[in-house]
C-alpha cells in the first residue's frame, strides 16, 4: 500500500520529527543502571532456561523431562535471538560499554552470522525500510508481500514458500545477506560471495555441531531423543520468530515507498516512513518480552538503538503524538495481525492483485521528490 498521508505540510512533518527527537533525547539521558538491570535479568533467565533445557534432555527418556527440556530450550532460544540478540546487535546496549553486550561483536544462538545480520538488517532494512526494491525484508527475495512487486507465475506458490520459510526460518535468515535471488539471476557473482559463504559455513557448522552432534552424544543412549528435542526447540523458535517478524511490516494498512520518495526526505519524513511502514502487536508484558519487544515494531523503527524494553513506555507518547498529527498507528492482537498477514500472502499469490499503476502498464509512479507534494491549497498530496 502506498503512503496514504496527504494532510501534513512539510513544516508539520518537521515538527512531528522534532517531537520524536525530543522523546529520543529524553530517553537517552535516562539510560543507565535500570537498563543494565533489565538486560541482566533477561540474560540470567535465558542462560538458566538453556541450562535447564539441556540438563532435562539428559533424562529425555522420561516424557515429562523431554517436554520440559524442549520447552525450556525453545524459550531460551527465543529470548536469546529476540530480546537479547536482535536488540544487543542493534547497539541498544552499547552505552553499557560492556564487551559482553557490544553490538558490533555480539553473536546469537542461531545459524546467521552476526556480522551478516548487522549488514542486512541494521543497515539495509532499517535504512531503506519498506522501499520496494531496496528493503530486501519485503518478501526476502522469495515472497510477494506487496502489490507493488510485479506478479510472476511462480508467485502462485507464495503460501507454500511462506510455510517453508517459517519452518526453516533460521536458515532463511542465514542466507538472507547472500541475496540468492540476485545470485541465481546472475546479477551478482558467486565469487563475490565467497567470504559470506565461508562465514555462514563456520557459524552453521558451530550451531549444528552443538545442537545435533555434541549434546546428543553427551546424553548417550538418549542421543536420538536429544537430537529430536533440539530440532523441535529450533523449530519452535523458527515458527515464533517468523510469526512476530512478519507481523512487523506486512499486516494490512502498512505502507510501502519508492526510492524517489525516500531520496530527499527530511528527518521528520524518515520518522514518518518508519511509522507508516511498521505495525505493532498488542499483548501482555510476557508476550512483549518473548517477542523481543518487536511487538512494538513502530517504536523499534523510530528508535532502533534505544533499549527495546523501553518501547512500551515510549509507545504511550508515540501514540499520543500520532493522534495529534492525525497519523495512523497500526496495532492489533496477534491473531488479527497475523491473520491479515496470512491472508495477504495467499491473496498476493494470485495474478489479479497488481498495484493500480502496474495495471496501467507502468512501474509504480512515485512523487518526484521525497518531500510530499503540496497542492495550491497547502494540502499534501498522496505520494501515489
Amino acid at each position, binding site marked *: 500500500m502506498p503512503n496514504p498521508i496527504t494532510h501534513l505540510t512539510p513544516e508539520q512533518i518537521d515538527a512531528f520529527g522534532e517531537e520524536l527527537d525530543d522523546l529520543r533525547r529524553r530517553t537517552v539521558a535516562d539510560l*543507565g*543502571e*535500570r*537498563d*543494565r*538491570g533489565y538486560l541482566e535479568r533477561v*540474560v*540470567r533467565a535465558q*542462560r538458566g532456561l538453556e*541450562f535447564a533445557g539441556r540438563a532435562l534432555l539428559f533424562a529425555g527418556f522420561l516424557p515429562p523431562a523431554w517436554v520440559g527440556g524442549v520447552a525450556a530450550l525453545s524459550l531460551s532460544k527465543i529470548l536469546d535471538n529476540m530480546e537479547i540478540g536482535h536488540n544487543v546487535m542493534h547497539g541498544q546496549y*552499547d*552505552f*553499557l*560499554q*560492556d*564487551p*559482553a553486550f*557490544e553490538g*558490533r561483536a555480539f*553473536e*546469537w*544462538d542461531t545459524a546467521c552470522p*552476526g556480522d551478516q545480520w548487522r549488514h542486512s538488517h541494521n*543497515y539495509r532494512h532499517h535504512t531503506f525500510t519498506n522501499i520496494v526494491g531496496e528493503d530486501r525484508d519485503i518478501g526476502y527475495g522469495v515472497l510477494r508481500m506487496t502489490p507493488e512487486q510485479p506478479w510472476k507465475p511462480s508467485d502462485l506458490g507464495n503460501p507454500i514458500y511462506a510455510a517453508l520459510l517459517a519452518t526453516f526460518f533460521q536458515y532463511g535468515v542465514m542466507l538472507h545477506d547472500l541475496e540468492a535471488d540476485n545470485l541465481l539471476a546472475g546479477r551478482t557473482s558467486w565469487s563475490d560471495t565467497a567470504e559470506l559463504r565461508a562465514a555462514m559455513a563456520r*557459524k552453521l557448522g*558451530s*550451531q549444528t*555441531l*552443538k545442537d545435533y552432534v*555434541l*549434546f546428543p552424544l*553427551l546424553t548417550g543412549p538418549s542421543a536420538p531423543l536429544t537430537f529430536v528435542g533440539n530440532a523441535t526447540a529450533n523449530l519452535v523458535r523458527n515458527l515464533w520468530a517468523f510469526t512476530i517478524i512478519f507481523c512487523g511490516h506486512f499486516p494490512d494498512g502498512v505502507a510501502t515507498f519508492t526510492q524517489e520518495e525516500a531520496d530527499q526526505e527530511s528527518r521528520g519524513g524518515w520518522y514518518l516512513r518508519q511509522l507508516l511502514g511498521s505495525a505493532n502487536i498488542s499483548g501482555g508484558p510476557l508476550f512483549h518480552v518473548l517477542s523481543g519487544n518487536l511487538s512494538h515494531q513502530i517504536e523499534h523503527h523510530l528508535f532502533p538503538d534505544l533499549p527495546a524494553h523501553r518501547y512500551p513506555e515510549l509507545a504511550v507518547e508515540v501514540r499520543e503524538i500520532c493522534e495529534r498529527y492525525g497519523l495512523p498507528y497500526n496495532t492489533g492482537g496477534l491473531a488479527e495481525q497475523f491473520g491479515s498477514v496470512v491472508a495477504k500472502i495467499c491473496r498476493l499469490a494470485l495474478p489479479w492483485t497488481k498495484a493500480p499503476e502496474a495495471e496501467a502498464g507502468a512501474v509504480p509512479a512515485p512523487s518526484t521528490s521525497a518531500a510530499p507534494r503540496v497542492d495550491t491549497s497547502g494540502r499534501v498530496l498522496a505520494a501515489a
Partner: protein
Amino acid sequence: MVDVMGAPVADRPRGVLRRVLASELVDRLTAPHGVDRYLELVDPRWVVRETRAEVVAAVRQTPGTVTLTLRPNDTWGGFRAGQHVVVGVEVDGIVHERCFSLAGSPHRADGTLELTVKANPAGRVSRHLVDHARPGMVVRLSEARGDLTLPPPADRGDHLVLISGGSGITPVLSMLRALVDEGHQGPVTFVHYAWTLADVCYLDELRALTAALPGGRLLLGLTDQPEAGDLVGPFSVEHLAAVTDDPAGCRVHLCGPAPLMAAVEEHLAGLGLADRIHLERFGPPPIDPSLDTGQGVVTMVRSGRSVAGTGTVLETVEAAGVRPATGCRRGICGTCTTTKTSGVVRNLVTGQDSHADAEPIRLCVSVPCGDVAVDL
C-alpha cells in the same frame, strides 16, 4: 606462547575442573557466547578466559586517594614491575575502563596486586573508586601491558634513577619494591615530587625501602613545603646534580605530570642523554596545534556518514554521536583500534603518520591530516 612471567599460558587457569571449563569442548557446547558468559552469572570470579579481581582491601592513605589490594583469579598471567593494567569498573551500570599502574612488587607471595588511585575531579572512575571501593567489589582486568619496566637483573649496572610526581609514583614504586625483593645491590635513587609531606603516599614505606637497598637513596621535592623536602622548586639542573655527578651512568625511569616529564627530558636531552630516559606518559598527549585538524573530513564507511574533523578521530566520531569501543583514551590499550581505510592520520604519541590504506589506527590519539575514512 609464554606470558610475561615466563610461565606457559596453558597453565592457566589451574585445577582440573577449571581446565575442563576452559577446554575446547566446553567452548563448543557454550557457543556462541562462550563459557564465561555462563560462569559469571554464578560468580564473576569464576570466568576462565577473562580476568576478574576481587578487592580485598581499600585503604585511604592520603586525602583523595585510595590504595586497592586486588586478588586476581587464576587466569591472571603476572606482570613486570612498572607495567599497567586496564581496569574495568561498573559505575551506574556502565562499564568504564581506565589504565592504572601496578604499584606492588611482582614477587608478592600471596599474588595480590596493588593500585593507588587518585581522585581526578573530572574522572568518573577515579572518583568512584576513591569514594566507593570496598572489599568484595569485583573489577575486570586486562593482561599487564607497557614497556616501562626494569631491565633484566644481569643488565642493571647503571645507577637506577626513579623519578615520579604525584600519583605517577605507582610504576616506579613497583620497581623499587621489586629491586628490594630481588636483593639489588647497585645504586638506586628514588626522586619524588608532591605538594606537601602529607600528600606523599607510601612515605614510611619509601623510607624503609630505600634504606633496605645497599645503594638506596630517597630525595623528596615538596613544592608547597620546601623546608621539609630535599629538593627545592620544580625539577632543575641542581636536582640532577643532587641525584648524581655522572648523568651518563644513569638509567632514568620517569612517570608524572607533563611539566615534570618535559623538564627532565629537556635537561637530559641538553646533555645528549635523551636515550637514558624511560618514561610512562600520564594523561592524554597535548594536540599539536600545527596540525590542520579542523580541515579533514572523517568518513565512517560502515554507516556512510561523514563529519568534519574536530580533534582526534575518536573525538570527531563521538561528536557525531558514534560510540566506538574505547579504553584508556591515550593510545595505550588499543581497545579503540580500528582500520583506517584511506587517508593520512598522525599518531600524537609516536608522531608517526599512517599513510597506508587499511592500516589499524588508535582512534583516540590519531588526528586526521586531510580526509580520512575509517571502518566504523
